[in-house]
């Protein structure tokens, strides 16, 4: 694992590490969480933030200064999960714009998206929202300049070279290409989250 040696302060109550990959971020975050010092430890795609009560700031700072991450002791999920997706139309109102940006026809885009095996890199944003890598290198889809105030549950968006699935209805800034029917977050279930970091994902057009 490659991580910055020291975290920097990004708020009065938040420290942040920079790392190379989403896997590094997950590994570092899970080890920091195990220290049980902070209010929250949250992984980004190339960052890990540690938020603490200012009362324990000195203790947290001291612990972080001597903390040595260990990449070996961390195992991600590896199961493959298939998600059925309806592309374009009312389900993916930005599919055409995304295709224009990437220079692909809609059918070519769908072929690329369904043929590849994707990987869940991170859960974040809202409950169960999944950041899924696997689009070809060089994909560079920007976010919407003005986020939508309401995106339906199951909406699938792309941003940069990630696919993102909205597990809840709510505001969202990713251009939308389609929608899945499966629930990714069910608080009433014994295992509320369908996807976890490391899961492989295959999209199936329906």
């Amino acid at each position, binding site marked *: 694992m490659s991580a910055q040696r020291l975290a*920097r*302060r*990004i*708020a*009065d*109550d*938040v420290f*942040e590490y920079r790392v190379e990959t989403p896997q590094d971020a997950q590994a570092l*975050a899970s080890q920091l*969480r195990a220290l049980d010092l902070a*209010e*929250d*430890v*949250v*992984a*980004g*795609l*190339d*960052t*890990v*933030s540690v*938020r603490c009560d*200012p*009362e324990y*700031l000195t203790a947290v700072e001291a612990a972080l200064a001597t903390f040595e991450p260990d990449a070996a002791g961390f195992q991600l999920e590896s199961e493959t999960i298939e998600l059925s997706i309806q592309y374009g139309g009312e389900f993916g109102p930005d599919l055409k714009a995304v295709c224009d940006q990437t220079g692909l026809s809609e059918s070519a885009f769908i072929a690329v998206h369904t043929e590849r095996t994707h990987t869940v890199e*991170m*859960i*974040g*944003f*809202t*409950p*169960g*929202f999944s*950041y899924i890598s696997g689009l070809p290198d060089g994909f*560079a889809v*920007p*976010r919407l*300049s*003005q*986020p939508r*105030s309401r995106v339906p549950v199951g909406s699938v968006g792309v*941003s*940069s070279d990630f696919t993102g699935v909205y*597990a*809840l*209805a*709510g*505001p969202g*800034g990713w251009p939308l290409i389609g929608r899945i029917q499966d629930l990714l*977050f069910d*608080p009433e279930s014994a295992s509320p*989250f369908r996807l976890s970091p490391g899961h492989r994902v295959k999209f199936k057009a329906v």
Partner: protein
Amino acid sequence: MFQIVAAGLQTTLQGAPRLGYRHLGIPYAGPADALSMALANRLVDNSTDATCLEITYGGFEAETDTACAIAITGAGGEVLLSGAPAPMHETLHVPAGARLKLKPARYGARAYLAIHSGFRARAQFGATSTYLPAQLGGHEGRALRAGDVLSVTAQAQVRQTWQTPDALRPLFDGKFALRATISAETELLDDVMREALFSNTFIVGRQATRMGISLEGHPLFPASDGMMKSAPVFPGTIQCPPSGIPIALLCDAQTTGGYPRIASIARCDRHQLGQMRPGDQVRLLHRTPEQAVIEYERKQVLLNGWLDRRA
């Protein structure tokens, strides 16, 4: 039993924030104005984060069929107890069969109604606070409506009549000055815009929810290609999307975001976000993280002198 007669624009049950689940995408929730909720709980002998009603923009009415002790703090319109004016920031000993009415406030956005021993609410992921987007906690995970019946966790008496000390009562006048630090992507602002961040007066836009508050009037443009990798955000983070309109995040803030994080509101002043309404004026006062912590500790000492003191 405590029956809702009119719920106003949005009334939810809020208690402690849902800490420790952000890595699963689960926001904190909890009160938008944690200070006002703590003050309300104090007046009815509760712990600071016992479950309360958070009432948005007044227009609230309820009836109780049992005697109870309640207190109302936060954004104040007129309070009527069975038709007679009643004070905010004071323990109210409510007789059985009373009707309580809270009229809309001129300034500020949210009032907090605490009841002795706290409202009963569903705890999910470790907290009772309502998180509407995922229907977690509170009363069936939703905003309250007319006809809903709430119960309290235990019956007991409050003997004293407490009043919040004058010096601790927040006043709302539609103008906010919030201490703030720079954050992870502040460096993407050029010198002129960095200066503007801490000298402009922003106007709260139409988007002023429990999730975020847009700060309009002086667009800021971080040098970003829109391809930033999603990174953790928290209540207090100020993000800046390409529209140039910064968004200050609060209690229901998403857990990660892909817009540059240009500032962070200091922990000591975050409670004020919960009282902003469209059209209000907001200034950010620059602090280093170290200064902000000292000011937070000072404020805690001042508040704890009251919140921790029980007869």
